[in-house]
């Protein structure tokens, strides 16, 4: 397989389009949890009703089209190799939990991989919809339409007081989890995230970062999502999240300007060192790769680095995960081999940029 073919397979088509504020917000996601009225939840372990749910979804929706999403294809967990599942997990199309359900687990995935409906995960249905950039309103609107399309042919478990009933009390009500993935290098470098995160938590939102050995978040990526699903409408939940994300975007932009003014040469040095590491190293662990990728992406956004596409951060964060590395290598790799292969893949990817 050529690298270009591999990338085309690894990167979902929707990721190649650009959304609002995409210098800071990499993607937006809406997830809706829904259950059928007649069947016990997947958490009950009652197989018979889960088989019915799967059969219903297969019969009614497999290879069906919905508006811009074209066909939805059904993949059954029972029919996938472990490495295929891992690739779907790394592409965010299924969850690790669904991958473990080898009996009744399945997913309906749209052709452009923007929408995925997980079947018999923790709830009967978990619809996820992704948009590039900061597009929560559009994502909610579209997700709600797909939800109506799914409801047409079944009866949802719904209670007037509690709303959409879910396996877990943390999802009941709207069943909505709205999230954005943000790249916040300047707020991280200026140690502002430590102050900001507790403030955001007070508003009923959750911020997640991935931390390496140091104090900086891995890839300086943060996921911000709502925690509360009950007592607020879908629109309110999304508006509340949006206003916080908007403030974070503005703070990040100000911090970038400040960094440029205060320590332009140091910042430029850090960025180009990272670029050098990615372009020349022979062994690279995922945390170092994440840090360097984040620096290079910042370098592109600030105009230091030209001729490298912005997508490099999103793309290589996906491509250099173990499932994809082994898929590209077409064999199992131990952690040491992975580090060497990762370095090789990144060098090769950067060479594609130089024309």
């Amino acid at each position, binding site marked *: 397989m050529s690298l270009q073919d591999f990338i085309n397979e690894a990167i979902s088509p929707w990721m190649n389009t650009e959304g609002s504020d995409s210098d800071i917000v990499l993607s937006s996601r809406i997830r809706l949890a829904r259950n059928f*009225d007649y069947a016990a939840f997947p958490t*009950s372990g009652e197989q018979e009703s889960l088989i019915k749910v799967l059969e219903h979804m297969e019969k009614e929706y497999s290879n069906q089209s919905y508006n811009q999403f074209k066909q939805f294809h059904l993949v059954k967990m029972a029919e996938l190799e472990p490495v295929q599942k891992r690739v779907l997990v790394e592409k965010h199309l299924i969850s*690790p939990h669904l991958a473990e359900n080898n009996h009744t687990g399945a997913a309906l995935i749209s052709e452009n991989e923007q929408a995925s409906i997980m079947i018999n995960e923790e709830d009967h249905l978990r619809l996820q919809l992704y948009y590039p950039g900061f597009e929560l309103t559009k994502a909610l609107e579209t997700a709600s339409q797909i939800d109506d399309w799914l409801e047409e042919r079944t009866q949802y478990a719904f209670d007037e007081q509690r709303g959409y009933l879910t396996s877990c*009390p943390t999802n009941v*009500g709207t069943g909505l*989890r709205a999230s954005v993935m943000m790249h916040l290098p300047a707020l991280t470098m200026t140690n502002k995230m430590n102050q900001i995160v507790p403030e955001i938590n007070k508003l009923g939102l959750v911020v997640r970062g991935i931390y390496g050995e140091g104090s900086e978040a891995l890839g300086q990526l943060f996921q911000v999502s709502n925690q509360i*699903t*009950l007592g*607020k409408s879908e629109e309110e939940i999304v508006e509340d999240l949006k206003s916080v994300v908007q403030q974070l975007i503005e703070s990040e932009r100000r911090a970038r300007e400040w960094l440029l003014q205060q320590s332009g040469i140091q910042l430029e040095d850090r960025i180009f060192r990272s670029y050098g590491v990615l372009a020349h190293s022979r062994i690279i662990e995922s945390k170092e790769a994440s840090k360097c990728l984040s620096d290079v992406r910042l370098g592109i956004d600030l105009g230091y680095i030209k001729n490298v596409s912005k997508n490099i951060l999103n793309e290589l964060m996906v491509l250099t995960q*173990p499932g994809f590395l082994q898929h590209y290598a077409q064999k199992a790799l131990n952690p040491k081999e992975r580090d060497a292969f990762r370095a090789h893949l990144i060098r090769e990817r950067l060479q594609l940029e130089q024309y």
Partner: protein
Amino acid sequence: MMCQKCQEHEAAVHYKQVVNGEKQETHLCEGCAQEEGYMNFSDNGLSIHQFLTSMFPFDQSISQKQQVRRTEDAVCNKCGLSYQAFRRKGKFGCSNCYETFHPYLDPILKRVHSGNTTHVGKIPKKIGGNLHKQRELDQLRKQLEQLVQNENFEEAAPVRDQINKLKQELEEEREGGDQ
């Protein structure tokens, strides 16, 4: 530090999050972190441990005896889940569990959802028009209250008319339903 999950490899990913002011740390090796999906969009607002502790914070304070008596009778007759098992797992087994455990739910939901216990969002299309109309009525009443408070009587008049119309419709439907 060893990986919390496999206890085999050195932990490489230290995952921190703060929920409602409480800090939680997870330490995993690279492989386990990938498996747990920490690099991906994570789906739950809370980790299961946090969630259970935030749901049932007074576990220890209830005497064993009391606890047993309170929960003996609460078993879902549809899926067989007992209240005790629900407390342990933190998950319902079916939609009927919400009915069965109704007396215990408000405090749990309040803790998880910042004091809220009632849904105000989307309503499935198939749930009769009644609930949709009831919602609309609630909205209009709020609107009217606001307008009257601001002494904006000109705009309040048509809102009041609309409320009366909806009320009448709802009443007619109710009478129709009783026959």
